[in-house]
């Protein structure tokens, strides 16, 4: 069974404008940044493209800048660079922790911020070889018309498993999206759609070029569960940003990954403002998270476990951030 790539051309633009133009001119082409996700998927035959637009030669994508209002991170910044950046680690701890927990060191050296945010969704019926998928019957996400995870349903349930997104969601990130028409800026949360087959709200040819973070976010953290200490995607990943005033919550934001087809901000955390962080609150948070996550049988670990683990991580992170804030 072959695991090599099919016929392929690579164009290497040096500006965003050229990249977007190249992509626009060639329907069916793909952007490639680090390639840690794309090349694997192409070797599996689940993504096919005969032309790749290489983003690695575009210098403007690899900068981290501060302008007094916000911090801008280029989509081409590598995960390793992000994890090792002291300003990021100091100000946006959830982001640094998430970056450091992605895959393995070799992937982090080449993998990028943009690539992690635009990671393809994953499923045990999808991330398989061509032989496997054809033997099983193709799935809704790839050449088929039934989602094997939920055959009665109408949509694909493949799960999003990027680590950075929840951290950026709780930190209030906005993103710049470039296209032939120019650049538009949207909240990161608007990038994602709860549909495993089309989870990115990007028009064909649009490119995520940068993200912006407010300068003074509340303290934050990220945690994930996985079977091994490296390589694995998160079975569930949680980011929390918590501002406290005295014994009470001032603001609380929670975002999740690994459980749904998109990373998402947990809704309904506003009423916690002004309340003390006690067992009652933690219990309510637990219920809130368990209610909103929708893990399906897309991984080898059970869906119920991912639900429980997501809630448990949330409780723990909230407690930890509060304790650190109080200290």
């Amino acid at each position, binding site marked *: 069974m072959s695991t090599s790539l099919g016929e*392929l051309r690579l164009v290497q633009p040096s500006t965003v404008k050229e990249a977007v133009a190249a992509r626009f001119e060639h329907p069916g082409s793909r952007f490639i940044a680090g390639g*840690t996700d794309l*090349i694997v998927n192409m070797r599996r035959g689940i993504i096919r493209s005969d032309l790749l637009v290489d983003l690695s030669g575009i210098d403007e994508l690899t900068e981290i800048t501060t302008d007094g209002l916000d911090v801008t991170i280029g989509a081409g910044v590598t995960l390793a660079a992000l994890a090792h950046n002291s300003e990021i680690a100091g100000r946006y701890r959830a982001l640094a922790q998430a970056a450091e927990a992605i895959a393995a060191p070799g*992937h982090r050296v080449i993998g990028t911020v943009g690539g992690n945010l635009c990671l393809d969704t994953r499923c045990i019926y999808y991330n398989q070889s061509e032989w496997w998928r054809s033997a099983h019957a193709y799935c809704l996400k790839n050449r088929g018309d039934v989602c094997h995870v939920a055959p009665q349903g109408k949509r694909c349930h493949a799960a999003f498993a990027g680590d950075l997104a929840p951290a950026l969601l709780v930190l209030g990130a906005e993103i710049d999206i470039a296209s032939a028409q120019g650049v538009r800026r949207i909240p990161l949360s608007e990038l994602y759609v709860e549909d495993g087959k089309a989870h990115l709200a990007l028009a064909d040819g649009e490119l995520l070029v940068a993200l912006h973070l407010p300068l003074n976010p509340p303290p934050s953290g990220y945690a994930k569960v996985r079977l091994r200490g490296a390589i694995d995607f998160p079975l569930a990943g949680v980011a929390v940003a918590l501002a406290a005033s005295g014994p009470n919550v001032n603001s609380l934001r929670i975002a999740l990954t690994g459980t749904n087809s998109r990373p998402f901000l947990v809704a309904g955390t506003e009423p916690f403002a002004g309340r003390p962080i006690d067992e009652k609150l933690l219990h309510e948070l637990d219920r809130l998270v368990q209610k909103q996550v929708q893990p399906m049988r897309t991984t080898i670990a059970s869906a119920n476990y991912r639900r429980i683990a997501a809630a448990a991580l949330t409780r723990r992170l909230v407690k930890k951030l509060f304790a650190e804030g109080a200290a």
Partner: protein
Amino acid sequence: MHAPGSQPKKRLLRLRLNGRWREDAVAERELLVDYLREVAHLTGVKSGCDGGECGACTVLIDGEAVPSCITLAVRCEGRHIETIESLATQGRLSRLQRAFHEKLGTQCGFCTPGMIMAAAALLRHNATPTESEIRVALSGNLCRCTGYVKIIESVQAAVEKPHDC
């Protein structure tokens, strides 16, 4: 060899390989691991999985340890690639190679080149890594023989001999 009429489109790739510049005609779809093994005949670079999962193919690109099985060769234009074959110089094993040999950091040897290259990248950035830093740096390189115990000890032994090449 290629079937008549199926010649893949190639382009000239110029890069520095183990210290020497070279040029080769390379298909644009060619993975770095295949270029290194089949074109440059550097078979010390191993392939253990179907893409990005085991680290056996780890090489250094401009000093950073990277899995060569998910890297397109043509994206390495102008860069410096180092493989296991570059480490022993003038008939001497590098300190990591010697340590892996003497401390039994290698059993079947198949993960060894990638493991040593990942360790080499670590020691260039961090001359005195802690045990947990070593574990993290090697966490993308799977080994089925050693339980990693003697691999960690090998890297630690190499750290203790910083001036021995």
